[in-house]
């Protein structure tokens, strides 16, 4: 079960990021995970939130460029080498990871990793076979959603 993620285009200028976080706060959006990739000119903010559609509408209505993409979420056991093992599984299957970021589970007991790959189904199936547990949107939101 892939997780819905918001990708937001942010111009690299003063106040660019706070305009977005303010807007989401004003609409009562709760963020579970956040990552940003940036260049000198622009950044792409990636968010997992409690209400993707509502957040998307609020951003779009304010002229902000946003796209909903699906990422694969997995739980990574808290011991050395586990992330490496997960990536090796994908590598062995020829699945290319475009980007990934880690975040803490809502229950606070483990680490989650969001992975952007070309084929979500293939990635999930490979990881599950290797013993990793995939994460649902419900897991991410915990009991707050």
């Amino acid at each position, binding site marked *: 079960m892939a997780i819905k993620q918001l*990708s937001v285009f942010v111009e690299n200028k003063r106040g660019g990021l706070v305009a977005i976080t303010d807007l989401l706060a004003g609409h009562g959006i709760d963020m579970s995970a956040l990552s940003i990739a940036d260049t000198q000119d*622009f950044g*792409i903010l990636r968010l997992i939130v409690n209400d993707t559609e509502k957040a998307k509408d609020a951003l*779009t209505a304010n002229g902000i*460029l946003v*796209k909903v*993409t699906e990422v694969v979420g997995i739980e990574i056991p808290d011991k050395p080498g586990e992330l490496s093992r997960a990536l090796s599984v994908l590598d062995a299957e020829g699945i290319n990871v475009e980007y990934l970021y880690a975040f803490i589970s809502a229950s606070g007991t483990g680490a989650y990793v969001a992975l952007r790959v070309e084929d979500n189904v293939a990635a999930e199936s490979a990881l599950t076979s290797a013993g990793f547990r995939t994460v649902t949107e419900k897991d991410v939101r915990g009991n707050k959603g």
Partner: protein
Amino acid sequence: MGQRYFNKEIETMSRDELSALQSEKLKKQVRHVYDNVPYYRDLMDKKGVKPEDIGGIEDLHKLPFISKSDLRETYPYGMLAVHLSDCVRIQSTSGTTGKRVIAYYTQHDIDLWEECCARAIVAAGGSKDDVVQVCYGYGLFTGGPGLNGGSHKVGSLTLPMSSGNTDRQIQFMMDLKATILCCTPSYAAYIGESLKEKGYKPEDNSLKAGIFGAEPWTEEMRRDIEKSLGIKAYDIYGLTETSGPGVAFECAEQKGMHINEDHFLAEIIDPDTGEVLPDGEKGELVFTSLDKEAFPLLRYRTRDICVLKRERCSCGRTHVRMSKPMGRSDDMLIIRGVNVFPSQIETVLINEGYAPNYRIEVDRVNNSDTLEVFVELSPENFTDTVGAITAMEKKLSASITGILGIHPVVHLVPPKSIARSEGKAVRVVDRRKLHD
């Protein structure tokens, strides 16, 4: 060294004699165009003007204007006034996609053009004892061939370097003791920096003068170039439509460029009404060729905005002086010597699937023009990886380079982030002017 002229009789001719000469030439030129260029004959007929109505330069204002769009419409042969078999060469403008103009030359036309360049070289202190390094581009561009021919006429040793390959330029400059450098001002500045990087001091080279043109440059830039190369820098003006560089050139006084008025008659008009303006007023420069055979143009609107000065120059030349062009009456930009129309960039954007919401920023950094293009992303072409967006920027940059011949830095920006004034996007920000 005393004041010297390439053609003293013509360059210092009294105004009365010059006017009489111009009037004689104008009558013949108008007759030649009327008889041989049907397109212009139609324009004259529509205006009710006959060649016999032009008794001298005082009747010039009766003739219809022509502009770049007329030249495009008559491409490729429509403005040709002689048989193609009488032509010996073509040159072409740097413009692309529909903006290209081809100019034709008979041997007579080449000779008069080269003489104009020879006058510029002599005015910059050149003689047969000089070594003239020409690093304007050779080929269709008029810069290289024009100064090359002028240098031959003066009898100088000519180094036909063409543009680029700066290491080789420097090697020839130093080994052959070049004394006069001809190129665009931005390239001159670049050569100056390269010399410095190689550890040369300004006094290490043998240069005494530079003849720089084909793009706008400021007094500030002139001082920088003069300092870095240890020379006196002279401005030169021209356009392919009238022949090429040498239509006007600076003398040692450096107070405007003398127009070669025995070949080119200049007027300043109000760009909106077409009305001729008195001397000293700022307006659009219009040229009428006086004795060209293959590609004569009557009242050609250059789109360059400048001022004419008729006070006598202390150099002894009597020909009218034009100021440096202060801008354009259309939206054309000259970037690194290349003519750029915003509409060319717009066409690329549309072809590549972008909305035509863009801003062009031109600046001059370290004496070299920079071109940046800001383009709005739309939800349709937004992808969520940095790599994909960077690749889009690169692709767009390559497409624009393919059309313009100069490389822009492309920045994709959020939708609606490009400033709009009164609902219309501000397309061009030219910061180069602010430095003057």
